């Protein structure tokens, strides 16, 4: 045990080794985090009056980011875990990158939800035994359970497999947990969808199609994000990423984006054809309502981006072209970020239950907190990567190995 702890610290040292580029990047992130922290303490001090959140639109940018990131977390694992199980070689090498992304995304989710609380210091009220969690009635309690469970499962798998690979031993003992992580990944996104879905007061969310739509769009943005990150990692580290793996992921995006747009079409048909009072949110999104149409340009941008990306990813000749592939990924990330962030949260509240239209747009404080959390996420990802890769590639000599070498000699 002691040896393991020591090994952990040996591996930890890696995060302090780096060139000026590395330190520059870390410094840059720290500065943004500082801005975020200042913005957040301002919000804590003065209350939500410094945000644009009001009674009419009671959730905003934080919850939008949260929802987007739950999708990233789910997709990261669902994409790479089959590689463990089916030993698909090209993807197997990038398994860690996916695991790290899932861990990072969940940490960011937790930060976004906490930033959205009026009284974060009372979070213990939700804890079992000491608090009074409203279980099983409240979907928010379910969400906290599945998200934390997911974080725990992925951290365990990540550390265990990393250690076993390094020791050169089999990691099959953790297989049950790896298999469990697949339905668990589906569950985090389904429960998050149900959180919105179960509210009859909000017809825009109260549609059975919501959870499938969540999953479909997550399978667009998550993989797109990973393709971009993989290339960055390949560029800045010694890790080689098989082109086949990237092509495989790109192919998957073609199917999921088609499905995502199909589901959106189903929703659009149902609302516009039936033309009931429940049409209002969708009308507000794409065409504006009573002269308020500030959301429409965003929503059309998202739609155009997603359709363009679909064309790129659907045609093999286009998606195998690396520049086009990257453009496609970029379009998808922005497209889904709008669709699942603003495009999901805001129309749920607009018009309000009493028919009022309050035009929500995040304040500088909300933007500050948000970029702060994104920078924290980037820092977590970078440090985890820095911790993992040298161990993975065998650059760092842990104690177990040193001993093994001694024994061999």
């Amino acid at each position: 045990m002691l040896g393991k702890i020591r090994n952990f610290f040996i591996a930890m040292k890696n995060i302090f080794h780096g060139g000026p580029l590395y330190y520059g990047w870390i410094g840059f992130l720290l500065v943004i985090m500082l801005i975020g922290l200042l913005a957040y303490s301002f919000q804590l001090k003065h209350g939500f009056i410094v945000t644009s959140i009001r009674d009419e639109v009671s959730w905003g940018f934080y919850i939008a980011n949260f929802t987007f990131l739950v999708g990233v977390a789910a997709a990261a694992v669902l994409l790479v875990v089959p590689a463990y199980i089916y030993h698909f070689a090209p993807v197997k090498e990038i398994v860690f990158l996916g695991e790290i992304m899932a861990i990072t995304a969940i940490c960011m989710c937790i930060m976004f939800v906490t930033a959205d609380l009026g009284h974060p210091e009372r979070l213990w009220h939700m804890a079992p035994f000491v608090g009074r969690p409203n279980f099983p009635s409240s979907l928010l309690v379910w969400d906290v359970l599945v998200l934390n469970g997911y974080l725990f499962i992925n951290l365990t798998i990540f550390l265990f497999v990393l250690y076993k690979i390094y020791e050169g031993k089999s990691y099959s003992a953790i297989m049950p947990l790896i298999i469990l992580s697949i339905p668990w990944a589906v569950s985090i996104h389904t429960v998050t969808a149900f959180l919105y879905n179960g509210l009859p007061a909000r017809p825009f969310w109260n549609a059975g199609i919501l959870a499938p739509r969540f999953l479909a769009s997550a399978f667009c943005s998550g993989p797109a994000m990973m393709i971009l990150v993989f290339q960055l990692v390949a560029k800045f580290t010694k890790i080689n990423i098989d082109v086949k793996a990237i092509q495989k992921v790109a192919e998957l995006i073609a199917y999921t984006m088609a499905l995502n747009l199909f589901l959106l079409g189903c929703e659009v048909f149902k609302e516009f054809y039936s033309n009931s009072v429940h049409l209002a949110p969708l009308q507000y999104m794409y065409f504006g309502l009573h002269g308020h149409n500030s959301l429409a340009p965003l929503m059309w941008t998202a739609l155009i981006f997603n359709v363009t990306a679909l064309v790129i990813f659907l045609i093999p000749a286009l998606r195998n072209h690396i520049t086009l592939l990257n453009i496609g990924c970029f379009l998808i990330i922005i497209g889904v970020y709008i669709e699942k962030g603003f495009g999901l949260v805001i129309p749920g509240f607009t018009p309000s239950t009493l028919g009022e239209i309050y035009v929500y747009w995040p304040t500088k404080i909300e933007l500050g907190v948000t970029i702060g959390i994104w920078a924290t996420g980037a820092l977590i990802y970078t440090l985890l990567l820095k911790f993992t890769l040298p161990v993975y590639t065998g650059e760092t000599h842990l104690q177990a190995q040193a001993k093994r070498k001694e024994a061999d000699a």
Partner: protein
Amino acid sequence: MEKKSKNEKEINRRGFMKTAALGVAGLAAQGCSGNINFDRFFQSHFKQMDKEELLSTLKKLEAEYSATYGRQFVVKATKPMEGTLFGYGLDLSRCIGCRKCVYACVEENNQIRDPQIHWISVMRNKKGDKWIDLENATRYYDPKEVPEDGYFYIPIGCQMCEQSPCTKVCPVQATWKEADGIVVVDYDWCIGCRYCMAACPYGARHFNLAQPQIPKDEINTNTHYLGNRPRPKGVVEKCTFCVQRTREGKYPACAEICPVGARKFGNLLDPDSEIRYLIEHKRVFRLKEDMNTQPKFYYFF
């Protein structure tokens, strides 16, 4: 020489980092202390308090409010009366949209003045082609005189649902339905997640965006723990049928002030009550019946 200057630089840099770190920590701490009341951090949930703890908590709150406002406060925790289920009736034919109820409520229940919270929204509806058309109704009307020709008014507050979606979704059970049917909030337990606001179909729940500042001469010192006691910022609040009054046999402030007698209040379990008479003899409806929330707020005409 060169070395020395490098050292100096190093020291300066360290000094700067130290100052910056301290500054940030200080700001963060300031932000926290602005928000967190450490005295109440460990306070139990209202329903978990035994008699002794409840009494000492009420005393503590009274002392705190009295110190803040310089006036003697009473914080009660009056229990529901046996055999009581409160119901509200509103006569749409009588309501003139004067909003006296809105402001009587604010005065009685100590709502934040800046930005204002109103527990009652009076919606102005156009008479004519549609019945209640919330999307085209407005609460921002400002005529010289009410009622205006061609309009009717519908005041909306908490509907005290029997199947309340708000209490169902609260992650920490900070809001619940009492035995007399009143849906209440424990302001010291609410985490401010605003899930209940998303769940409420009537826009009845309101969030304290800033620290409520109420003028000393306007504060109502006769308060209830689950009702009109001063709230902290960052928690949700709502109409409580004036729990501090109605559990002592008085009418809610809105019903008392209404100049046209449009507001009726009583015990639904008492067959001789006015509210029961109205339900049985008038054309009664409830808002958004399709939600199956089963409100105890009856509109009639």
